[in-house]
């Protein structure tokens, strides 16, 4: 199907690709400039916010990858965030705080595993990779059975996964210190690392979508039975998306742990799940740049609302702290989006292309359903190309 597009628009295709490359370069540069600015000029708190935006953007992109592309809605993404965070933390915490008195359940090699002598960024990279890999392996084990399910069922089953992870983190005190969580994790995440990982995540997601796998994902989302009919291995396709997104989320978890320096199970539960889901829905399911924009909005909005929550005065009216208000505003805003603009800010489009008022060629074919207007009808009436050709 997608192969038909370039044939039909040989003239438009070339400038489109160049436009896209220029745009990608511009976005990369702007991002790098922002990162440089954050790194060099912002104070500690604002820098942390910048890093947080990038980390949540990675999580949102990976959720958009699995939920937006394949339509398999996962409510368990934060479980992978937790796995990445805990695994990486256990690797890089100094052996002094991993002694058997503190964490009796750790195996000998892990308890004495020492990265304190390494360059901090090398240790962080190692922790990210291992955290991501463990998350991906668990994603493979969990996904292999769960990706058979669809719709509500898969949402519920992945939610079950999240609850199981949370329960283990809370109760396996010998390794996770239970509800007290882990602390004294080296805080080595800086804006550059977070930015580079975000670029990697976006690149992987975009490449994946424009690959045959990505088209299979979108096909299986649009019509499960028809996609099976044309030979898409739905299970494998979904599993690929699930595992890649588990890896990226695991990396984000590692970055998060090494940003805050202390993690506890409460961070990795429904609150965060809901926030990340809003990010993706707000940006538009299936839009990678939408996920990034959604993540930035959703990370900064609570910070902007914080003064309201803390209490103070509007003009002459004094009021005390309104704890919970920012969550109400977010939740109500979310419901309003669901009612009035369920496709989110960008829907299926990407930021730059939306600015140009265009969809990518394959989106015109495989993306959100297109109304069959007289102008489109002749294209659709064209004979279907032989898939073997």
């Amino acid at each position, binding site marked *: 199907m997608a192969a038909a597009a370039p044939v039909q628009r040989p003239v438009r295709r070339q400038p489109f690709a160049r436009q896209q490359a220029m745009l990608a370069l511009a976005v990369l540069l702007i991002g790098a400039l922002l990162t440089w600015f954050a790194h060099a000029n912002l104070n500690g708190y604002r820098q942390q916010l910048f890093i947080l935006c990038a980390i949540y953007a990675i999580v949102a992109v990976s959720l958009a990858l699995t939920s937006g592309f394949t339509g398999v809605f996962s409510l368990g993404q934060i479980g992978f965030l937790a796995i990445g965070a805990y695994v990486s933390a256990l690797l890089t915490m100094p052996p002094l705080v991993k002694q058997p008195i503190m964490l009796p359940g750790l195996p000998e090699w892990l308890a004495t595993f020492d990265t304190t002598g390494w360059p901090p960024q090398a240790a962080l990279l190692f922790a990210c990779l291992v955290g991501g890999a463990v998350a991906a392996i668990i994603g493979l084990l969990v996904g292999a059975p769960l990706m058979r399910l669809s719709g509500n069922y898969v949402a519920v089953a992945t939610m079950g*996964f999240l*609850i199981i992870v949370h329960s283990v983190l809370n109760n396996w005190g010998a390794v996770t210190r239970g509800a007290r969580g882990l602390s004294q994790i080296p805080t080595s995440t800086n804006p550059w690392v977070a930015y580079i990982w975000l670029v990697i995540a976006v690149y992987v997601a975009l490449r994946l979508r424009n690959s045959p796998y990505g088209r299979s994902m979108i096909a299986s989302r649009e019509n499960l039975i028809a996609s099976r009919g044309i030979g898409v291995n739905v299970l494998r396709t979904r599993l690929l998306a699930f595992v890649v997104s588990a890896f990226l989320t695991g990396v984000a978890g590692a970055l998060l742990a090494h940003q805050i320096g202390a993690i506890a199970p409460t961070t990795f539960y429904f609150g965060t799940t809901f926030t990340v889901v809003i990010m993706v829905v707000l940006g538009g399911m299936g839009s990678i740049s939408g996920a990034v924009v959604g993540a930035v909005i959703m990370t900064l909005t609570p910070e902007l609302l914080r003064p309201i929550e803390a209490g103070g005065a509007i003009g002459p009216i004094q009021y005390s702290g309104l704890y919970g208000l920012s969550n*109400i505003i977010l939740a*109500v805003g979310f419901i309003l989006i669901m009612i009035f603009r369920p496709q989110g800010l960008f829907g299926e489009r990407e930021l730059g292309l939306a600015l140009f008022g265009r969809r990518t060629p394959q989106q015109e074919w495989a993306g959100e359903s297109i109304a069959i207007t007289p102008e489109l009808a002749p294209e659709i009436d064209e004979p279907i190309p032989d898939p073997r050709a």
Partner: protein
Amino acid sequence: MSAAEFGQQFINALSLGSIYALVAIGLAMVFSILRLINFAHGETLMIGAVAGVVLADRGLPWLIWLPLAVLITVGAGWLMERVAYRPMRGAPDVTLLLTSLGVSIALQNGALLTLGSQPRPFPTPAVLGGQIPLAGGVQISRVNLVTIAIAIVLMIALTWFVTRTQTGIAMRATAENAMAARLMGINTNTVIIAAFLIGAALAGVAGFLWGSRVGRVEYDMGFIPVLKAFVATVIGGFGSIPGAVLGAYILGFGEIFLVALLPDYLTSYRDAFIFVALILILLIRPQGILGSTEPEKI
């Protein structure tokens, strides 16, 4: 486990299952008609309990505040349907699920704003306090006994409603096939509202019973019951009311006896075991015990 201990645990499980059943019925009814997994159903339970606390603070006797609290819960259920779910009719399943999560978060934080984060003691009526000694050293707490009795009465009433009244029959018809029901002149709007109102009423009663059971009220108290009720509906079969009740009792017994039989260091993993079981059921028999399969139409 001695016989007396077993008897006590048996009653305890029956009572826990009854509360889950009251919550699960509302979930199953709404799901069968709208295909909406209403996570905010737990918040109707919370509203019932909170309304009880607030009204009891005004010095009302429980015979007055209890029906008032249930009435408030029913109002909340109606409002929820009207404001959040009606505009979403016909949206994809997952969109509905996410909307209900949004409603749930909004209501929880609304309660947080008004109640504060500290738990409040629940004004359990004195009649429900204490134990009743039975033969063989078995003691039953009154709360448990009353819970079981109320649940049975309500379930009989519900059975009467869905089999004997016009709205009830219309409700079952709509659940079976909404399109055909509409063509037969059934006002599906009425049916949907009725499902929300009945579900909310049952959840309000469940909120009272749950509050009496755990003795306190918190802004997020609806979360655990709704999750469990949800597991119950999955066990019994999504959207089947008898299935939901059966699933609720299976879950109640499973939970109580899992804790009683497991070694101590594993009991805190109870929820993990329950959700492992949930995932297994979803994989092996997604239609649950009493649910029926619906082949996907091309």
